[in-house]
């Protein structure tokens, strides 16, 4: 169960055009959260915006805090994007079900497209094995800087359209290479899109050596959340076992469960 935390901005940056990166001191969250979980951030001091915003934990700073990566669009997140070093933030978390990580040393494939990278890179702070990151973005200005990734990561950036064959070939190859696959960039609405990226991912994983076995391939599903604690039933994701609340039963789901 999450808790309310007071965090302070330790550093801020714009590592990717149009994206904001905040490093927050919050030892309690760093110790209790795992990759794939998220925090509900209060964006403002009064009640506009009213609801908290769900943001995935992007990186972990062992025993010290966490980092958040987000696009500062809309009134709440642009307020958050304007925070400076020393500013205090009200966080609630960790929330949700994170990624199931294998024993240290396993080779991991990370796949993201669009702006979906944020929840994936926390995995890098919890593994010692080889990692391949396949990332699609529409323009080179949106590429995640290589220097922010640990040396063990094999970085396979792809600049182009999401539906291009080159990207999906890289994903398919990565599915053959890794012992586990973790993906992000899927929204709850994408799940029903028969021609969309989620279907392509499912196909690629199904044809790779991992297959669609539970826990071997997991996806972070983006859903609009109001409460972040399973109360409001507003963030349902369709799964093979029926609708599930992304906020507590996700946002990480087994790929085999979806679609």
């Amino acid at each position, binding site marked *: 169960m999450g808790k309310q935390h007071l965090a302070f901005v330790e550093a801020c940056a714009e590592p990717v055009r149009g994206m904001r990166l905040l490093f927050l001191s919050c030892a309690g969250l760093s110790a209790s959260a795992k990759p794939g979980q998220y925090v509900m951030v209060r964006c403002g001091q009064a*009640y506009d915006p009213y609801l908290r915003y769900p943001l995935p934990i992007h990186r972990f700073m062992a025993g010290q805090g966490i980092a958040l990566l987000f696009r500062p669009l*809309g*009134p709440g997140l642009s307020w958050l994007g304007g925070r400076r070093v020393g500013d205090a933030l009200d966080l609630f978390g960790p929330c949700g079900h994170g990624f199931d990580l294998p024993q240290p040393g396993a080779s991991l494939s990370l796949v993201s497209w669009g702006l979906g990278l944020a929840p994936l890179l926390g995995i890098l702070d919890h593994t010692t094995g080889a990692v391949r990151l396949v990332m699609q973005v529409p323009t080179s200005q949106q590429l995640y800087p290589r220097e922010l990734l640990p040396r063990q990561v094999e970085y396979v950036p792809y600049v182009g359209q999401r539906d291009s064959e080159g990207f999906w070939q890289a994903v398919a190859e990565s599915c053959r290479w890794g012992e586990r696959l973790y993906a992000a960039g899927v929204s709850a609405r994408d799940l029903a899109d028969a021609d969309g990226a989620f279907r392509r991912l499912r196909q690629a994983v199904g044809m790779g050596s991992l297959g669609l076995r539970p826990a071997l391939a997991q996806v972070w599903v983006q859903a*609009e959340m*109001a409460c972040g604690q399973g109360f409001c039933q507003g963030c349902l994701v369709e799964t093979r076992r029926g609708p599930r609340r992304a906020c507590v039963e996700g946002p990480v789901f087994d790929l085999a469960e979806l679609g």
Partner: protein
Amino acid sequence: MECAICLGPGQKRELELASPLLVAAGALGYAPLSLEAATRAAFGAFITPPLTARPLAGAASPRLARTTAGYVQHTGLRNPGLRQAIRLHARSWQRAGLPVVVALYGQTSGEFGDLAAQLAEVDWVQGLELHFPRHMAADEMAECARAASAESDVPCLVRLPFQGTIIAARACAEAGADALVVAAPPYARAMDEDGAWVHGPLHSPALAPAYAELLYEVARQVDVPLIGRGGIADIGDVLALVSAGAVAVQVDSLLWVQPAAGAWLYQSLEGEMTRRGAADWQAFVAHCRGNEIGHGPGDRTEPC
């Protein structure tokens, strides 16, 4: 805080509230234990999400649109149905240490009668709160309240609609409702971040004065205990509802924004009582109403 609000006196089983703050229907979903014990102790009762005779799968996406100082959310009342909800959650509801009020949603008086009858033998249920479809007429609401009360030994609370509130309040009071909850959120339409319409209840602290006005008007029309809700974001909103005529208030989505809100609202209320020299909640309520509204003919200034 010395507080002994008794709803439904004369019923076989009364609903006694040790605090005037209640957890609104759905505010904690099915999980009152998710609140820390200290915060839980600030509340006088836990109200379940509205339950129906059969399971409801809920609304299709989009379900949430953020608005200026609020949000529109349409969940479609997703719930497992009354029987299954009791099977799944009764144990945790009882362990929470709060009186449990079961919220019921139906379309007809027959449905409400059946739902209430299912709970008649459940000894830990200490109250019912009836929720109605948006366009139900006041006389139908009254029929539903009659039907539920007839099948139940516990106090029957009726949640009034945001529109047509006064007519519904009169009808339901006449039908024997033990308390009226003022009121359900208004319906609104807003676009989500992808530009899709979301149509459903609007929740916002900006609406607090509108709820206070509704409650103020209802208090002049009926002689039934009133429970305020809607837009509560700080102690001033609670005091406004009490001054307007509420004997208790429900705290809703504020618990998502400020998880410890119950505790600080309770402490603030205690502080206000001390400041005004009120020995207990009843005296405090009388003091608030005496100061704020007890000036005209027909004003109901007696505490419940």
